[in-house]
């Protein structure tokens, strides 16, 4: 408590306004931390200053980190160190979360103790990539903090040009739609690729996300260089009795389900209360299953569709990931999948320019080159539509 005397509690008239209203207030959280930690106090003060100035007050600094790791820490420095000395250095640790963000309270409490000891006492649960974000500490505290984290079994996540911390949806943990074991697969890949995760050696960041079905609850398609999405190859399981129950309960099957089926492959006979699905035409969009989970279930021949190239806009515009494998069985030890990941990363590593994401490289060198390099055959499922332009550059080999 000696700390407390050092500085008066911060005056934050602007931020105080954000303690009003029903939604939980991050300002209240900052004040709670500030009651214990100088760092949190100065963070509040600097933020109040930012609210006045309408600009941020952080700058980039040298690379900081912990022994044996190339990533996992984001270095950050105040651009007003004299005014806010406690956050002159204020680095973030990215800590790898457990699959599906499941915790027991014991582990979480241990984590809190470590962070109260070494850092600001503030965190993000979680970061947008999925890590536990330990928000701000001094350079000198990084190694001791990591050592204590290691003690309780928490390792670092990714940052910089490495494989970023992969994430997955709750999947088999609590979801009947899961076509693959997202949690186990995530853990296995994370362990298999510890080196890629912890030691930046790629041209740029590479993100892997895993969703158990096309609902894509971890937003893998727009946010990952490599997206693994559960799906099935056979037919939707339909329980006629349960279908009838929905109808009897007054649920509008014709209007809410059949009419919204994108492939129009369902037919509903109101009289006999029978629902038919032309499975060959179904594209597995999940809509009908989402609306009638008691009556309709995903198929039984399960696996995943693999898509690559998703990313945010820097530099050439955002990309959604693209189908490169329509269907792959996903079972331990996941050999086929890992061989593909290795080939993809190897090709990207060899050909990618610095700060060039996988999707951008594919666009620069051509999908054709990529498919050849990783040994995947062209199939119509890869495209929304074939090319509309005549600019195919023929390989002399092809012209005989």
């Amino acid at each position: 408590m000696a700390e407390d005397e050092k500085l008066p509690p911060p005056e934050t008239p602007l931020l105080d306004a954000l303690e009003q209203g029903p939604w939980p207030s991050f300002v209240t959280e900052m004040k709670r931390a500030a009651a214990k930690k100088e760092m949190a106090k100065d963070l509040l003060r600097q933020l109040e200053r930012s609210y006045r100035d309408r600009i941020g007050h952080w700058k980039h600094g040298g690379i900081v980190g912990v022994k044996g790791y190339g990533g996992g820490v984001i270095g950050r420095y105040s651009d007003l160190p004299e005014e806010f000395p406690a956050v002159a250095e204020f680095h973030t640790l990215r800590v790898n979360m457990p699959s599906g963000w499941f915790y027991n309270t014991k582990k979480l409490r241990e984590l809190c103790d470590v962070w109260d000891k070494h850092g600001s006492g503030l965190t993000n649960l979680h970061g947008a990539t999925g890590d536990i974000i330990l928000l701000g500490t001094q350079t000198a505290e990084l190694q001791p903090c990591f050592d204590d984290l290691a003690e309780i079994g928490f390792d670092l996540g990714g940052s910089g040009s490495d494989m970023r911390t992969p994430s997955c949806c709750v999947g088999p943990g609590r979801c009947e739609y899961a076509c693959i074991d997202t949690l186990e697969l995530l853990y296995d890949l994370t362990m298999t690729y510890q080196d890629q995760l912890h030691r930046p050696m790629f041209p740029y960041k590479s993100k892997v996300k895993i969703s158990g079905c096309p609902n894509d609850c971890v937003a893998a398609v727009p946010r990952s260089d490599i997206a693994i999405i559960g799906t099935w190859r056979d037919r939707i399981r339909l329980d006629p009795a349960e279908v009838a129950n929905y109808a009897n309960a007054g649920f509008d099957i014709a209007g809410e389900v059949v009419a919204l089926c994108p492939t129009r492959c369902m037919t509903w006979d109101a009289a006999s209360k029978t629902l038919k699905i032309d499975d060959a035409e179904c594209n597995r969009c999940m809509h009908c299953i989402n609306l009638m989970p008691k009556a309709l279930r995903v198929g039984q021949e399960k696996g995943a569709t693999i898509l690559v190239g998703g990313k945010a806009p820097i530099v050439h515009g955002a990309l959604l990931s693209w189908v490169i494998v329509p269907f792959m069985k996903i079972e331990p030890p996941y050999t086929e999948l890992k061989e593909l990941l290795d080939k993809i990363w190897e090709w990207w590593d060899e050909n990618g320019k610095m700060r060039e994401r996988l999707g951008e490289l594919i666009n620069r060198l051509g999908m054709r080159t990529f498919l050849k390099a990783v040994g995947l055959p062209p199939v119509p499922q890869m495209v929304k539509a074939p090319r509309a332009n005549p600019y195919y550059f023929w390989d002399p080999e092809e012209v005989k």
Partner: protein
Amino acid sequence: MATRTDFGPPYFRDMLPPVIQKNYGQWKYHERIKPGLLVHVAESGDRLWTVRVGSSRLVSTDWIRDVCDIADRFCDGYLRFTSRHNVEFLVSDEAKVEPLIAYLDAHGYPVGGTGHSVTNIVHTQGWIHCHTPATDASGIVKAVMDELFDYFKEWKLPAYCRVSLACCLNMCGAVHCSDVAILGIHRKPPVINHDIVRARCEIPNVIAACPTGAIRPDPKTKSLIVNEEKCMYCGNCYTMCPGMPLADPVGDGVSIWVGGKVSSARTPPKFSRLVIPYLPNNPPRWPEVTAAVKNIIETWAQHAHKHERMGEWIDRIGWERFFDLTGIEFKVQLIDDFTLAPETYRSTPTFKW
């Protein structure tokens, strides 16, 4: 002692409540009992109740200990977080469900965010911790969620509505596929402080860092010049060199994007599209931003068919009608002129007046 490395995250199975251990991968169906409350039923007949609670995401260790206390009391010490930063209390004993909810209500933990609601806003660091933000993150999120609170607590919407925020073009919130996206933007090139550049920056690295090749050396000043026409305000140069700050109280602000989606339900994922190019940074509560977001969501809620996401609704009625109904002015900034621009132009005389 030698630090051990590469041991990975805690094994998730040690974090699963017994009911999940037992019924792992054996879930049969679920029901949405009421906003914030789900029940999942296993083949075995076992049931798992999930109570979802909104979080500010930026939380203190005290808060974490508080939710741990709750989990100990009602959930045998197990809980999880969602991909949108909400907390989920996992209850295996039906008798504890309502008491838990009552406790949460009493202590100001918002229960909701499931089904056809506005759930938590995926967001980023902003002025809290990043060095390139064009706006704050947590502050706008708090102000907007206060405004949309009823839509989190209740089912008053035709479909899912995902709101996301990112504080600069890097889009850490991956806002590019959200029903409503709030994006911080810089509108002015970096202002160069030549002394700092000379003193503290590696000129070649700074030049190399610029994705658009907008920076060139200036022999005269022994510093740098930015070709303002080429600059797209990404801040990479500032990352390399503190002498080139981008942040500017007038230049910086917020843009609003709509109509994106992620899931493939019914329609494939879609990008969000720009509808309001600029709103000022007006802390602490960004009234212009909250009003704009609310207007868009309520206009959609009023006109969309059931299960129709923002983007699906707009695809049905057409963008011309969207601007009409929301009363948002169509500005020249909305017309694409980047690399795929032609794909966005209208090549048919068919449209609505």
